[in-house]
């Protein structure tokens, strides 16, 4: 089985490639990259005028399966991924039951393998039941396919527990992904603390709620030597803490979401529950700091924190609405917008959603090297399209970008050489 992707502009940041090349795929693997490869008996996909990149990677997704399938499931979630050009994703363990045992890990992997449209790499829980009390069986979970550990959605409150989690995860060479939030400082807040929360009369969440926990976790990473990955950094303070830690040589990486580098807490005005997420949308100063962190390499990955919620969970008073938005299908245009705004080079932008998250998770994806699995995304960077709720592949429609025009989208998504999405 041969496929030839012809005449595209190949962007492969891991190999510093940016040129017009053909890619020959044989039996789901990349066999050759060269100008003008003869078609032979291969099926030809024309990529003229398009970018050809490694299949995109989103390292922070909530698939809601098992247990919360009314929001999303592995089939619809990976379909949304494919439509967004994402071929690999890491799914967070706060399902029902949570992914703190091998049975759940195996269920996710087998259902994704049989019915999914993307590679699914589970993240296991740090603690049993995500209660922050007893370590989950990380060794067995890692062996079963988990690529990292997190109690995402909840911070590990107890300092010693986090220390032991880092030490233990280090034994198995897995990163700990920190949802850095000091709940005592959140104190029931519903949005970013600042002039907008004062005006709207909503309880604010101060930046320090994130900064204080990021600082603690970085220091614990320094103590233990284990790889710490800080999820969804949203504040100037967190970006700066990670920057300083990297300078000191601490093994720390971090990610930022498209909404945190695109929107400010202004989006909450009108009590828009699709602008409610955790961490909350912050100030323009924080957005600028996140962009600067992406530009100078402090931030290693762009991840969506794709968090589907049923309309009934959003169509309520702001204070009681669920946190989170769907993001898989708007990841690419919002990332490319940073290229348009001259925050990132195209190589940087693609690296942040391919080889860099792959490196963090230790998965053999995110490049177009010869011999690699042929996960490939064909991108039209200039195509304009309207985000419409009914056209989203995700089961949930909780996006603040609905009704907005995006620029850039995946035209074809190949998973091991097989087309899983075409526009």
């Amino acid at each position, binding site marked *: 089985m041969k496929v030839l992707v012809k005449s595209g502009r190949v962007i492969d940041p891991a190999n510093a490639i940016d040129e017009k090349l053909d890619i020959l795929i044989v039996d789901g693997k990349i066999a050759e990259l060269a100008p003008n490869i003869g078609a032979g008996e291969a099926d030809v996909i024309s990529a003229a005028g398009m970018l050809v990149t490694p299949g995109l990677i989103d390292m922070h997704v909530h698939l809601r399966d098992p247990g919360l399938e009314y929001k999303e499931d592995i089939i619809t979630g990976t379909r949304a991924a494919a439509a967004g050009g994402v071929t690999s994703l890491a799914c967070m363990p706060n399902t029902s039951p949570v992914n703190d045992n091998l049975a759940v890990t195996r269920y996710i992997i087998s259902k994704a393998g049989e019915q999914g449209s993307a590679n699914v790499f589970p993240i296991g829980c740090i603690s049993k039941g995500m209660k922050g009390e007893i370590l989950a069986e990380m060794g067995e979970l890692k062996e079963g396919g988990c690529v990292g550990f997190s109690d995402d959605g909840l911070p590990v409150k107890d300092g010693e527990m986090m220390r032991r989690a880092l030490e233990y995860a280090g034994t198995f060479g897995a990163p700990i992904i920190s949802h850095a939030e000091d709940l005592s400082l959140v104190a029931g807040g519903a949005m970013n603390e600042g002039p907008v929360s*004062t005006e709207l009369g909503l309880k604010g969440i101060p930046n320090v709620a994130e900064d204080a926990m990021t600082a603690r976790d970085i220091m614990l990473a320094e103590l233990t030597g284990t790889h710490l990955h800080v999820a969804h950094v949203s504040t100037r303070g967190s970006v700066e803490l990670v920057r300083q830690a990297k300078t000191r040589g601490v093994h720390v990486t971090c990610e930022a979401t498209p909404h945190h580098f695109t929107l400010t807490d202004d989006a909450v005005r009108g009590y828009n529950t699709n602008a409610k997420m955790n961490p909350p949308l912050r100030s323009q100063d924080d957005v600028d700091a996140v962009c600067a962190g992406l530009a100078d390499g402090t931030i290693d990955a762009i991840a969506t924190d794709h968090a589907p919620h049923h309309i009934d969970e959003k169509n309520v008073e702001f204070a009681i609405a669920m946190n989170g938005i769907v993001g898989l299908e708007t990841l690419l245009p919002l990332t490319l917008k940073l290229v348009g705004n001259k925050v990132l080079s195209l190589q940087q932008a693609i690296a942040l959603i391919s080889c860099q998250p792959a490196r963090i998770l230790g998965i053999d994806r995110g490049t177009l090297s010869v011999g690699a699995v042929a996960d490939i995304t064909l991108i039209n960077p200039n195509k304009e399209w309207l985000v419409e709720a009914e056209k989203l592949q995700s089961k949930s429609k909780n996006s603040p970008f609905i009704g907005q025009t995006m620029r850039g989208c995946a035209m074809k998504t190949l998973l091991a050489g097989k087309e899983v999405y075409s526009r």
Partner: protein
Amino acid sequence: MIFNPKHILGIKELSAAELTFILDTAESFKEINNRDIKKVPTLRGKTIINLFFEASTRTRTSFEIAGKRLSADTVNISASSSSVVKGETLEDTAKNIEAMHPDIIVMRHSASGACHYLSERLSCSVVNAGDGMHEHPSQALLDAFTIRQHKGRIDGLTVAIVGDITHSRVVRSNIYCLSKLGATVRIAGPGTMLPPGLESLGCEVFNNLADAIRDADCVMMLRIQRERQGAPLIPSVREYARYFGLNDNNLKLAKDDAIVMHPGPINRGVEMSSAVVDGPRNVILDQVENGVAVRMALLYLVAGGEKLQQD
């Protein structure tokens, strides 16, 4: 001027001219409240539902009397007797009420933005009787009305507001209302009760009572809302009273003819000494009295105003 807003959700959205028009309209209703027969047929045939998800005596009664004196049929629904306890959503509750064709829903709710939420989902008018920590427009209007009654104007006055600013919807509406009408608004409270970015609403912020009330024309004290405080914001009521309570002594800092206001209910001995509460400067009962006239004006204007009289 013709001003018939569909909803009254907050003061922020209203212009100085619109605020003045509401106050002038209230002026014409005030006289009705002193008649022997306190009723005019203006809103006959209209149905007003007072939908209160939070306990309230003053505001609910005031709206109810306002509606009745305009001959509207008023119905009160309070949260304890509603379907909220059965788990119904706010939207479903409101839609069920709307199916009975009210003309106006007057709502109080503990969630900021709840009236905004309702106005986007219902076809009848919504009047905000207090939403969370957001706005309480009828209170700000009756405060402005009372100040105007005693001072003859609002433009150029200095009004000090002292208390738990963070949790107060009254203060937000008052800052907008008074500053739009030309007053200088000074705010004071302990640091734990001053939200960030308060200045951007249109006021000066102080962390002590003396600087805020010095030479003020009007001093407005807010209730220390013990029931709202989940977090430790003040060490004790005793210490609060010592540094932020109004008494005969510190009241001397304000102008000699300064008036003292309070949205009620008062904690005597906490935000105000009993001597001040019972003293000659306070206009608190005028506020309550004027509340009826202001709410009559709001219901009248929302229901159709000028157009209504021509029919």
